[in-house]
């Protein structure tokens, strides 16, 4: 009789294998060590088969630009190239892999329906100089998204072209500056200062400075909101605008917004609102009702278009009646059944001669408009309202589930909006927010936003968005609770985290002090290769 001729006799073992023994390759099963592309390719190989260049002819045409020595670009075959980038991509974290709790970023799911619509050739392959008569569908779509945004904000005018949030801020401030310059031409005094709260996005003061304004900050009250009295005290004939983020970066709704708007307008200034956090109030609050003069809307946050390496942003700006005449060109207008593009040649005739100019050469991010339109139409008005409600509910669930283990500085201020904010108070001596963030990597989550906003020490800002299920939130809360408890107990292994990531904790100080920005061939490696 034949007894197990194959020799296959698995030893199940106790499941407590030796984790520390390094493999021959340095790989850990599916976690593959991948060198730089310069280190795997060599200059003797190529993945393509090109005909030899007609050398004599090239010399004639390139003159002094002719290369005198090889530049050492790596040559790789197609499978080597594909594998290199696929391996690198496996070390990445993405919203398609799990919860992405970056506060202030609204990392929500990007519905596949959006992607399908954006790839329709009629939208995707359109040239920006296509004659108006041949791209009526695209103009109709831009107009549709603009009308939705105007309705959702109750603002009468919109600029669709800004390419991202900060670009939208710039657009808003340029319109405000144009309005002030028009007043100056009518004899008004110049205004040189923009007020920005301490808890503002860092781009706000940068935008104001870029527009040539001096920036002064407004302090926050103890409950994390703009200090109305301090704001009123700073208002005066030199103030051009006040920039407020609402909901703010502490995750709180600015309750005094109408009083702020009244005070700003009484002082002859304009109110800019950073709408980056619109996701928390879309369908529930119309910023136009609060007296806002200009606000950008991040389509790549609230309306689910990809961002964070996944795609370009889009930051349309809505304007009040007062600023509408100064809004930039071009914009889409519906005339009867036809859509037209109001540009420089037609602006005067269309009574838009005060437009401050253009933000971009063409129309903005068409692909993002298609995705946002797909999101709006598939959700409907009621669906968008529920987006805001669910996003706020999820953030409050995180806040209340963790406030017993992590210090929540504004927990007593009432419910938060779209994001939960914690501080590093209560962690053991020598333990920091950075340790918590690094340990979350070991737990398989992207870390939260850390050390922002600046008004909270060791801030941890968590925005779960409406995307996540209760089960996912519970797993994340459990992981963060476990990590926080280790931080409070002073568990020294926490300071070693991440332990399971492809790389351990990097020396950020050394990287900043002695950055290596250019790859250079190591002399000894070159010798070894020969």
């Amino acid at each position, binding site marked *: 009789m034949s007894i197990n001729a194959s020799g296959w006799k698995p030893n199940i073992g106790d499941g407590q294998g030796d984790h520390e023994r390094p493999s021959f390759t340095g790989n850990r099963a599916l976690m593959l060590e991948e060198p730089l592309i310069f280190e795997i390719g060599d200059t003797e190989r190529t993945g393509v088969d090109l005909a030899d260049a007609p050398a004599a002819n090239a010399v004639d045409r390139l003159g002094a630009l002719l290369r005198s020595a090889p530049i050492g670009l790596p040559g790789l075959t197609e499978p080597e190239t594909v594998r290199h980038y696929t391996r690198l991509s496996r070390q990445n974290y993405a919203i398609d892999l799990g919860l992405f709790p970056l506060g202030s970023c609204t990392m929500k799911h990007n519905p596949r329906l959006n992607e399908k619509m954006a790839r329709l050739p009629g939208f995707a392959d359109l040239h920006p100089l296509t004659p108006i008569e041949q791209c009526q569908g695209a103009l109709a779509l831009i107009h549709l998204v603009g009308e939705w945004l105007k309705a959702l904000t109750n603002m009468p005018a919109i600029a669709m072209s800004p390419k991202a949030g900060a670009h939208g801020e710039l657009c808003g401030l340029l319109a405000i500056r144009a309005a002030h310059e028009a007043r100056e031409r009518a004899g008004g005094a110049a205004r040189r200062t923009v007020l920005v709260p301490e808890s503002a996005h860092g781009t706000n003061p940068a935008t104001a400075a870029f527009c040539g304004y001096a920036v002064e900050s407004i302090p926050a009250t103890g409950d994390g909101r703009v200090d109305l009295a301090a704001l009123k005290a700073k208002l005066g004939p030199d103030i051009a605008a006040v920039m407020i983020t609402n909901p703010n970066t502490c995750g709180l709704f600015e309750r005094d917004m109408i009083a702020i708007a009244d005070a700003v307008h009484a002082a002859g200034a304009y109110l800019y609102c950073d709408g980056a956090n619109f996701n928390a109030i879309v369908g529930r609050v119309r910023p136009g009702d609060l007296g806002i003069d200009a606000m950008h809307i991040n389509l790549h946050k609230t309306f689910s278009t990809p961002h964070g390496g996944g795609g370009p942003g889009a930051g349309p700006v809505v304007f009040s009646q007062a600023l509408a005449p100064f809004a930039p060109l071009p914009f889409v207008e519906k005339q009867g059944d036809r859509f037209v593009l109001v540009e420089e040649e037609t602006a005067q005739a269309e009574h838009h001669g005060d437009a401050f100019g253009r933000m971009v050469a063409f129309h903005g991010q068409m692909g993002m408009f298609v995705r946002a339109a797909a999101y709006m139409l598939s959700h409907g008005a009621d669906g968008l309202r529920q987006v805001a409600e669910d996003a706020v509910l999820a953030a409050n669930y995180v806040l209340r589930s963790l406030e017993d283990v992590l210090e929540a500085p504004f927990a007593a201020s009432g419910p938060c909006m779209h994001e939960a904010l914690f501080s590093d108070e209560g962690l053991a001596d020598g333990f920091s927010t950075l340790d918590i963030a690094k340990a979350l990597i070991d737990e398989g989550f992207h870390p939260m936003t850390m050390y922002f906003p600046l008004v909270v020490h060791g801030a941890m800002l968590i925005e779960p968005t409406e995307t996540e299920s209760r089960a996912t939130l519970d797993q994340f809360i459990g992981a963060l609770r476990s990590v926080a408890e280790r931080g409070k107990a002073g568990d020294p292994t926490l300071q070693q985290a991440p332990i399971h990531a492809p790389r351990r904790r990097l020396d*950020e*100080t050394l990287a*900043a*002090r002695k950055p290596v920005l250019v790859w250079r061939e190591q002399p000894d490696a070159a010798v070894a290769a020969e």
Partner: protein
Amino acid sequence: MSYYYTRDHEWISVNGTSHDTIATVGITDYAQAQLGDIVFVEAPPKGTKLSKGGECAVVESVKAASDIYAPVTGEVVEPNRALEGEPALVNSSPEDDGWFFKMTLADSTELEGLMNAAEYKAYVASL
């Protein structure tokens, strides 16, 4: 040598208060501890005119970039070149080798509005 301190955590040291006194400016030990590892210091070049309370230098740590404000009015006579190659001096010796720049004193009475060492210590304790 007398040290004076601002509420924004700069220190200024002077030897006497005559019109040709040269003062030295830096950030306090408390400030460097709060900032963490300093990775870059941009000190004002020689000849820069400073006015009290105005931005005069930038210090970057791993955590944040922060503005430094001139504690008094005057003119920069010498930035600390050693910080260009070794910003860590601000961490290891904030109130000595890690000085940012030396400056003239336009109005020595401005020093009177600043805190002395004991007052600054009490101020930091209250934060």
